[in-house]
């Protein structure tokens, strides 16, 4: 399931619900991305999505992860709107029979979400606002998943 959220959320409550009743799952990996204060350099973060388009794009990658890593379930939550330091931005949980697949699928989804997913991000600090472009290290992380020809 993929959800874009206008309001802050509790990653733990989501993890509890996700783990509930999974008698045959074995392994649940999760990742929570939290807005950093950067020692006061970042006051707020604004995240913009294109409703419908953004979920569809993430859904395509999530289906790829399901097949590739044999996932039994996944949950992707992503904040949009104005985010304060300390608030969660993104939460991904993956369920699989064994931990290797759960970890790799979670890692794979996060690399996609942090580098190529259709979001536009603006940081506001004491010196004003700026739009953030993808970091070079995000693109390097993503390259790990590309199968060589």
């Amino acid at each position, binding site marked *: 399931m993929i959800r874009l959220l206008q309001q802050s959320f509790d990653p733990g409550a989501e993890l509890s619900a996700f783990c509930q009743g999974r008698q045959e799952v074995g392994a649940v990996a999760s990742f929570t*991305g939290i807005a950093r204060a950067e020692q006061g350099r970042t006051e707020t973060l604004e*995240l*913009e999505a*294109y409703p*419908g*388009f953004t979920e*569809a794009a993430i859904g395509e990658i999530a289906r790829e992860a399901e097949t590739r890593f044999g996932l039994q379930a996944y949950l992707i939550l*992503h*904040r949009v709107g104005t985010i304060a330091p300390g608030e969660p*931005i*993104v939460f991904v949980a993956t369920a699989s029979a064994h931990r290797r697949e759960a970890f790799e699928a979670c890692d794979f989804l996060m690399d*996609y*979400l*942090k*580098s*190529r*997913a*259709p*979001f*536009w*991000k*603006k940081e506001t600090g004491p010196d004003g606002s700026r*739009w*953030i*472009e*993808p970091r070079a290290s*995000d693109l390097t992380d993503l390259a790990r998943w590309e199968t060589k020809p």
Partner: protein
Amino acid sequence: MARVLMFGRLADLAGWRDRLIEAPTVSALRAHLDSLDAQLAEALAGPGVQVALDQVLLRGDAPLNPNSEVAFLPPMSGG
């Protein structure tokens, strides 16, 4: 008449995020936008800017109908 959406820094440059514009094709719409503001025109032509027609990425041109939605997307930064 198409619904035109701007995202990220393109919306900041344009000064709007959502507007109805009359144009027969995407390229005609683009020419109209370019004529409005030289700075916006330059940004729209910038590296990595993509166009989506009815929520699907578009390469090349396409005709518009009254229900069309055209979105101008700066490079996606991820979340």
